[in-house]
């Protein structure tokens, strides 16, 4: 006679199975320290409901590794949600096996219960500027929409708790490549960086990044986050350049780097 497994036996069995799965998963290098990134959170009472920025494709980046994922660059504004998920809007660059760098507009999403997604839409060229936004669909919604060049967008529903944002930010990043002149770089330009809240039923992009309650940045491995301008006094984080190429002096010092507020995933 075979006895049915007890709950304890099931728990032990599931733990063993999970341990086998975890140990078999490849844990590779990740991107968050290969970025020029900044994030803000707003004062209590300001329910963060959106982020926007004017992005310019400053240059075609130098990329050493070919492959759509392997050597790619993300340039985007993003929103981190309380659940630990992220949604971003901006553009994406990668180098093909012939050595040609391709640039597309992009929305980005990171779901803790699913995947990391880069959604590309249309080819972009150096010099193009556009406004990228991530915003809540309504003041009580857990759905958020990322909009990028030409109005290409992605509308994503997250968890129950995600009816407001946690952190708004801008980032230029790659998976695992240290800056090397003419080999790997991240030229980028972000301007008019703002956050939004709901005011009388309408979404209002009413604060600049510089009007934050708390700020964190990250620029390591040779990358630079240059502080260019402020539209509300100081500090000059409403207009930033990423580099090197054009921007080589980082306002974000290594001493205050903290990648915890970069867009989640990768």
């Amino acid at each position, binding site marked *: 006679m075979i006895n049915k497994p007890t709950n304890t036996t099931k728990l032990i069995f599931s733990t063993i199975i999970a341990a086998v799965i975890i140990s078999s998963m490849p844990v590779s290098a990740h991107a968050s320290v290969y970025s020029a990134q900044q994030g803000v959170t707003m*004062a209590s009472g300001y329910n963060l409901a959106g982020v926007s920025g004017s992005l310019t494709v400053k240059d075609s980046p130098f990329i050493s590794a070919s492959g759509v994922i392997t050597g790619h660059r993300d340039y985007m504004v993003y929103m981190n949600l309380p659940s630990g998920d992220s949604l971003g809007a901006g553009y994406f660059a990668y180098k093909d096996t012939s050595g040609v760098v391709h640039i597309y507009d992009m929305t980005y999403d990171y779901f803790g*219960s699913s995947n*990391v*997604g880069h959604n*590309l839409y249309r080819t972009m060229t150096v010099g193009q500027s556009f406004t990228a936004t991530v915003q809540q669909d309504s003041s009580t919604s857990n759905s958020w929409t990322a909009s990028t060049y030409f109005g290409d967008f992605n509308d994503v529903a997250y968890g129950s708790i995600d009816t407001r944002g946690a952190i708004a930010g801008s980032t230029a990043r790659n998976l695992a490549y240290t800056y090397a002149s003419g080999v790997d770089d991240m030229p980028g330009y972000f301007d008019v960086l703002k956050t939004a809240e709901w005011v009388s039923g309408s979404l209002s992009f009413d604060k600049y990044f510089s009007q934050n309650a*708390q*700020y964190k940045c990250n620029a390591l491995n040779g990358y630079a986050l240059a502080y260019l301008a402020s539209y509300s006094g100081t500090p000059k984080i409403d207009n930033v350049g990423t580099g090197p190429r054009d921007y080589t002096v980082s306002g974000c010092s290594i001493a*205050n780097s903290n990648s*915890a507020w970069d867009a989640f995933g990768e």
Partner: protein
Amino acid sequence: MSMNKKFILLAPVIVLALASTIFLTTTMASKNDQVSATSNACLPTTLDSVTFKYPIKQPVMDPILTGYKLQAVDQNAADVFLWYSDHPLCQVHGLPDELYRGSILVIAAYNPNMGDSATEAQKELNNLKGSTAKLQMIDVNGYKGIGWEPFQGADVVKLNGTVLDSKPIPMPGRVEFFNDHDKTWYSVSGMRSMNELLQIALTIPK
């Protein structure tokens, strides 16, 4: 005294003056460029500086994960991240990177509009029903929630909906529940089995 001897005597003075000038210039430029509100120290290791609607309730890690303790607290306007590890965490790497290093993340998020626990958990299950993870309903000391095992996810790049490239990536497990008494959502995440994460969650006081 010859010119050469004069130069040898003055050389240290010139070098010192140049070094001082460079140091002062660099320091001042750096200070002007930096943002005063930036945190330039390690994250706090206690909840002393945290302002939250209700006292945040912490798990007891020992003996489930021996040697683990609260190593970093990171608060923003919407939630509080509590990082537990068996090694010091001055500055936390991003998510999920820090979990790949063995850390456990507990998130506490206050939601004044939270309904009763069972309704919220069912809503969460519906919200996340398209997930790659296999979602399971859980009960944490009477509060309902959902959880999932760590799983093999993917980094996917699509061009107008067609997959251009995909790379497998490990995704952390999680248990989350709705404390409708405090109107606080708690989640416990890590590269650990759901059972271990649930055991940790069960130590969070009711």
